[in-house]
C-alpha cells in the first residue's frame, strides 16, 4: 500500500487517542446547523430543503465517525470526498431553502459546516489535500453566493458577500492543513532524532551481541571441533578415521549454521511467545520493512501478553501469491470479552496503517488476524 503523508499514517496511536475530538466535531456540527436553522426559520422558503440539508449534515457527521474508526483505518480519500461532498451538498440545499428570503450571509451555517468538517480531517488526510479541497470549495461557495445576492439586505459590492461566505472555509481548511503539517513536521523531526538514538543504542550494544553470538559459536566448536583439531595438531598425522570424522563434524556444523542463518527475526519472536518457529518456508519475513516489523512485533507481543493468551495454540504463517505476501496469525484467547476493543486494539490500528487488506476476527476463543503487503 502507498503510505500517504498524513498524521494518521505516521502516528496511528496518536490519532486514536485524539479521536474524541472527531466525535465532538461530529456531534457539534449538526447541533450548530440545527440551531442556526431555527434562528433563520423566517428566512426559509422551502422547509423540505432545509430538512434535507440537515439530513445531509447528519450524513457528514456519520461519515466522519465511520471513517475515523480505528477498525477502518486509515481514513481514505474516498471518505474525505464523502465528508466534503456531503458538507458541500448540505450548504447548497440550505442556500436553496432560503433562495428568496435570505437576508444575511453571515448567519448562514453552510460555509462554517464545510470549514468545521475540513478542520476535523486535519489528522486523517494530507495537509495539501485538505488545503486544496478548502480552496476549491471556498471558490464554489463564493460563486454560489454571487447567485444569491438578489435577497441580501446589506448594501455592499457583491464580491464582499462572496468573501464573507468563503472566509470560514478558507480559514478553517488552511488552519486544519497548518495544524496537520506542523504536527507531521515535528513528528518527522523527532523521529529522525529517535532513529539516531535507537541506532546508536544498537551500535552501543554491538559488543555484547557480538560476544553472545561468538559464545554460541564457541560452544558449538568446543563440543567437537576444538578437541578434534587439538588431537590432529598433537599427533601431526591424519588417519582415515580423522578424515571421516572431519567430514562428519563439518556436515553437522553446516546443518546448524544453515538453520541459524535461515531463522528469521519473526521466527525468534514466535519462538519466544509460542515455543515454536513461524511457518515461513520462503523466508518472506525478511522482506518486511522496519515499520512493518515493528508493528508486527508489537502486535504479537501484545497478543501474547493478554492474560487469556494460550501459547500452545499460537500459529503464524506467511505465504506469497505473486508479489503479495499475506501473514496469517491465529491465537487462542480464553475470554468472553471482545479483545478487538480492548488492549490489543491500538496495535491493530497500527497494523492497519502499515499493512493493507487487514482482516481481524474474534470468535471466542479464536483470534484470527490476516494482513498483507506488496513485496518490493
Amino acid at each position, binding site marked *: 500500500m502507498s503510505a500517504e503523508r498524513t498524521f494518521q499514517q505516521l502516528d496511528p496511536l496518536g490519532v486514536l487517542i485524539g479521536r474524541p475530538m472527531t466525535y465532538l466535531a461530529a456531534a457539534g456540527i449538526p447541533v450548530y446547523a440545527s440551531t442556526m436553522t431555527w434562528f433563520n426559520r423566517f428566512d426559509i422558503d422551502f422547509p423540505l430543503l432545509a430538512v434535507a440539508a440537515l439530513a445531509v449534515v447528519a450524513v457528514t457527521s456519520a461519515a466522519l465517525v465511520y471513517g475515523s474508526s480505528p477498525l477502518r483505518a486509515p481514513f481514505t480519500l474516498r471518505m474525505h470526498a464523502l465528508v466534503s461532498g456531503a458538507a458541500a451538498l448540505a450548504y447548497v440545499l440550505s442556500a436553496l431553502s432560503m433562495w428568496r428570503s435570505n437576508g444575511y450571509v453571515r448567519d448562514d451555517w453552510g460555509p462554517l459546516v464545510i470549514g468545521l468538517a475540513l478542520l476535523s480531517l486535519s489528522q486523517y488526510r494530507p495537509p495539501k489535500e485538505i488545503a486544496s479541497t478548502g480552496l476549491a470549495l471556498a471558490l464554489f461557495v463564493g460563486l454560489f453566493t454571487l447567485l444569491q445576492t438578489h435577497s441580501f439586505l446589506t448594501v*455592499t459590492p457583491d464580491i464582499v458577500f462572496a468573501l464573507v461566505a468563503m472566509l470560514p472555509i478558507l480559514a478553517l481548511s488552511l488552519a486544519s492543513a497548518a495544524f496537520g503539517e506542523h504536527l507531521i513536521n515535528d513528528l518527522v523531526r523527532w523521529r529522525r532524532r529517535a532513529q539516531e538514538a535507537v541506532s546508536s543504542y544498537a551500535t552501543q550494544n554491538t559488543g555484547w551481541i557480538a560476544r553472545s553470538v561468538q559464545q554460541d559459536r564457541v560452544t558449538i566448536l568446543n563440543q567437537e571441533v576444538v578437541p578434534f583439531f587439538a588431537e590432529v595438531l598433537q599427533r601431526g598425522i591424519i588417519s582415515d578415521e580423522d578424515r571421516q570424522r572431519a567430514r562428519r563434524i563439518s556436515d553437522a556444523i553446516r546443518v546448524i549454521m544453515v538453520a541459524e542463518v535461515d531463522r528469521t527475526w519473526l521466527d525468534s519472536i514466535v519462538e519466544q511467545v509460542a515455543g515454536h518457529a513461524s511457518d515461513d518456508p520462503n523466508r518472506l519475513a525478511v522482506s518486511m520493512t522496519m515499520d512493518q516489523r515493528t508493528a508486527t512485533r508489537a502486535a504479537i507481543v501484545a497478543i501474547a501478553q493478554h492474560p487469556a493468551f494460550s501459547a500452545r495454540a499460537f500459529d503464524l504463517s506467511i505465504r506469497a501469491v505473486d508479489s503479495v505476501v499475506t501473514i496469517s496469525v491465529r491465537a487462542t484467547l480464553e475470554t468472553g470479552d471482545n479483545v478487538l476493543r480492548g488492549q490489543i486494539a491500538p496495535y491493530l490500528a497500527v497494523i492497519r496503517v502499515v499493512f493493507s487488506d487487514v482482516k481481524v476476527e474474534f470468535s471466542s476463543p479464536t483470534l484470527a488476524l490476516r494482513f498483507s503487503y506488496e513485496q518490493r
Partner: protein
Amino acid sequence: MSLGLPVHLVPHHVRRAYAKAAHIVALVCILTAVFAVIAIQSAQTDRILWPILIAFGVMLAALWQLDRHRTPFYNAAYLAVGGACVYWVSVVAMSEFPGAELSDNFILSMAKVALIMVGGAGVRTITGIAWTVGGGLVAGLATFIATEQTGSTFVIDGTAVAAVVLFSALQVGLTLTRMRGPSAQPNLHRAARDEQLSAMRYRIEVKAAAIMHDTVLNHLAAIANAPAGELQQSLRGQVDRDLEVLVGEEWLLDADGAPDQQAHVDWRTSPLFKVVDESRQLGLEVEVSGDLAAVSRLGVERATAVALATKQCLVNVSRHAGTDRAELVVYGSDREVSVMVIDTGKGFSEEETGSDRLGLRQSVRRRIENVGGSVQVWSTPGKGTSVMIRVPAVDRAGTQTP
C-alpha cells in the same frame, strides 16, 4: 511508520501546532478584510476607507513577528499593536458611516477575530485560553472606546464571541484527549528498539557464519580431503590459527565493530590484493585487470567483505571449476565498485550446488548483501562461470552510500 511522539512531548507539539493554525486563521481574516475594504472603497469612492488598510498592514507585520517568536512578550505586543489597529479600523469605519451600528460589522469582526487568534505562549491550556479571551477583551475594549469617541452604538459582536468560545473549546478538547496517555506507545518504541537489536544480531550471525565457513569448515574439508599421513605444514598453520583466533579472540567484535575510519585503502595494501596474492600462492593463475584504484573507494567493512567473497569465488574455481585460471576484473563508478570473477571451467547451476549451499550463499551472496551490495552469478555448465559482486562506493565526503 508507526512510532508516535512520546507522551511527555505531545502537549508541547500540539500547542505549537495550535498556535500555527490560529495564526493562519488570523492571516486569512486580515487578508479577507483587506479585500473587502478594497472592494468597498472601489465601489464607494466618496468615502475614505483606505486608512483601514494601513492598520491591517501593521497588524500583518505584528502577526508575522508573533508567528516567528511564540513568546509571552510577542503575544502581548501583538495584542497591544492589534488592539490599536482594531481601534483605528473602528474609528475610520464609524466616522465614514456615521449613525450606523457598526461595532459588529464584518470588517471589524475580522479584525477582532484576528486578535483573538493570538495563539498564546507556553504549554498550559489555561494559559492558551487566557490569551484567547484576552484577545477578545482587548478587541472589545478597542471597539468600545471607538464607539464612545465617535458617538456610535456599541453592539456585542456575535462572531467574535463565537470565535472565543470555539477556539477555547478547541484547546480544552485537544488537551483532554491528549492527556489520555497511550499505553501502547512505549511498547511500540520498545518493539522498534528490539527490532534494531534483532537486525544487528542477525548481521553479526551472518558474519559469524561466513567466518566459520571460511575457517573451520574449509579446514575440516581440507583434512577430510587430505591424503592420510603426515599433516601438511600449511594446513597445520591454518588449523593452529583457527584455534587461536576462534576460541581465544573477539573475532566477531573486531569484524563488526570496526568503524569505517580507514576509508581509503590502496590496491597494494587492500584486502582484495591479499586474497589474490594468496590464491596465486596456492597455484591459481589469477589475471587482474580493470580500474584497480576503485577498491580504494570501499570502506574497511565493504573492502573486507568484497575480499572474502572474492576469496570464496577463487576457492570455488580451484576446487570445482576444473581449471587453474581465473580472471578478476574491477570496475569503478562514483556510486559503486564491481568485482567480477570469471573462469572458463565446468560451470554449474546455482540450485544444484548441494543441500548445504553455504559457500556461494553465505560467503559470497549473503556476506555482500549484508554490506548493501548484490551478487549476480552467470554460469553455464561446460562453459564457465562469472560472478559479479557489486557494492556501493564511499563518496568523497567519506560516508558510505546506503
